[in-house]
């Protein structure tokens, strides 16, 4: 008995098209993969976040697969609960079950995380290169990754420059969100380090007018795939949300406090 499941034209890429000349209509293998949602998803789910963001532009069909809730869930089962995010300072390793509280040592920042995307234990380390602050008040950071598989360190990504007018770069929170670890900074932009090992800055909303010279933040954390920033400026409480997949969109709610 023959396979009875497949009735369409034969699998075969362009190189054996001649042997299929008797087929009424030739469907290439690539077309078949492209038309098979399960198979396409099997491939897409293995792509890094940055590639997926770009491949949303391939077609509306691809976009629908990539933003599909089930797909997002499969790819990143529980991005808000990275249980093994650690850092150590010069004094020794600090283990934080609840992600990172805060760290403002500029000299050496080491961060270890269990990378949920690659399901292997990796260590992220940030160290300013050279002095704490170089001329022009710019700090150079380099990240290194420790592999528990090889037992060795390797440089990760390009060295990163942070404008630091106030000599006060901080690494508050350390929240895993949207494929990146996000740190909150009370001055200037905030930082993130994504699954593709890229360090970047996230612009923050301006501090409200008044006698506020720095952000009065109370909470920076993830809930239901949104990144939340809660700030209190005197009588005004600001709730800021970053939407899933939208790195730059801030929504502000100001709730006047009853006095």
């Amino acid at each position, binding site marked *: *008995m*023959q*396979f009875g*499941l*497949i009735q369409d034209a*034969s*699998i*075969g*890429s*362009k*190189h*054996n098209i001649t*042997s*299929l000349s008797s087929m009424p209509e030739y469907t*290439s*293998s*690539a*077309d*078949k*993969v*492209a038309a*098979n949602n*399960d*198979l396409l998803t*099997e*491939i*897409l789910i*293995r*792509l*890094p*976040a*940055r*590639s997926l*963001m*770009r*491949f*949303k*532009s*391939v*077609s*509306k*069909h*691809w*976009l629908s697969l990539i933003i599909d809730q089930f797909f997002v869930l499969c790819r990143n089962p529980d991005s808000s609960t990275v249980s093994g995010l650690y850092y150590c300072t010069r004094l020794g390793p600090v283990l934080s079950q609840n992600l990172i509280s805060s760290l403002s040592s500029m000299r050496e920042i080491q961060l270890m995380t269990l990378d949920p995307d690659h399901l292997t234990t990796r260590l992220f380390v940030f160290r300013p290169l050279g002095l704490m602050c170089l001329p022009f008040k710019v700090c150079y950071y380099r990240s290194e990754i420790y592999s528990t598989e090889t037992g060795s360190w390797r440089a990760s990504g390009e060295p990163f420059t942070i404008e630091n007018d106030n000599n006060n770069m901080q690494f508050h929170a350390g929240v895993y969100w949207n494929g990146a670890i996000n740190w909150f900074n009370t001055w200037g932009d905030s930082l993130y380090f994504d699954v593709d090992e890229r360090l*970047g800055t996230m612009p923050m909303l301006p501090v409200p007018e008044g006698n506020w010279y720095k952000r009065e933040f109370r909470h920076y954390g993830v809930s239901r795939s949104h990144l939340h920033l809660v700030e209190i400026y005197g009588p005004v409480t600001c709730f800021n949300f970053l939407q899933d*997949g*939208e*790195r730059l969109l801030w929504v502000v709610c100001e709730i006047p406090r009853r006095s």
Partner: protein
Amino acid sequence: MASAPENEKNASAPEKKTLTLKSMINNEEFVVDEHVALQSVTIKNMVDSDCAGDVIPVPTISGEILALVIEYCKNHANPSASEDDLKKADAGIVAKDIYTLIDLVLAANFLDIKGLLEVTSQKIADSIKDLPHQDVREIFGVENDYTPEEEAAVRAEHDWAFEGFP
């Protein structure tokens, strides 16, 4: 006792059943041990339900691809192969151009061989991850159904992912 190998072979023949897989694309035939072929859930179902004759015609897979599939099944049917050996062997099997990989992933899907499906999907993902989306469109023969305005809007949402790409 010079003819022992022949005798032994005959003696153990009932234990070692073979199946013949025949590519219906180019009529190439492959004789494989049954336990090797049974890694394909599709073939296993056929054998289990007595639907398989001596020659199993495989209608949609070329001989070239079928050979790769059988190589994979042989490797993974070998109980003494270490995990490292298998990893290396798998890497060798999928060290192919993207179009061969696409044929292979379809074959793995059709024959229902989970491990091969996974390792081939991963290789395809690795091969396309650094390509511009226009190239990916071409490889998969996807028609761009965005209007220029829609495409620009989708792209603008993730500008950061397009750095260094056309």
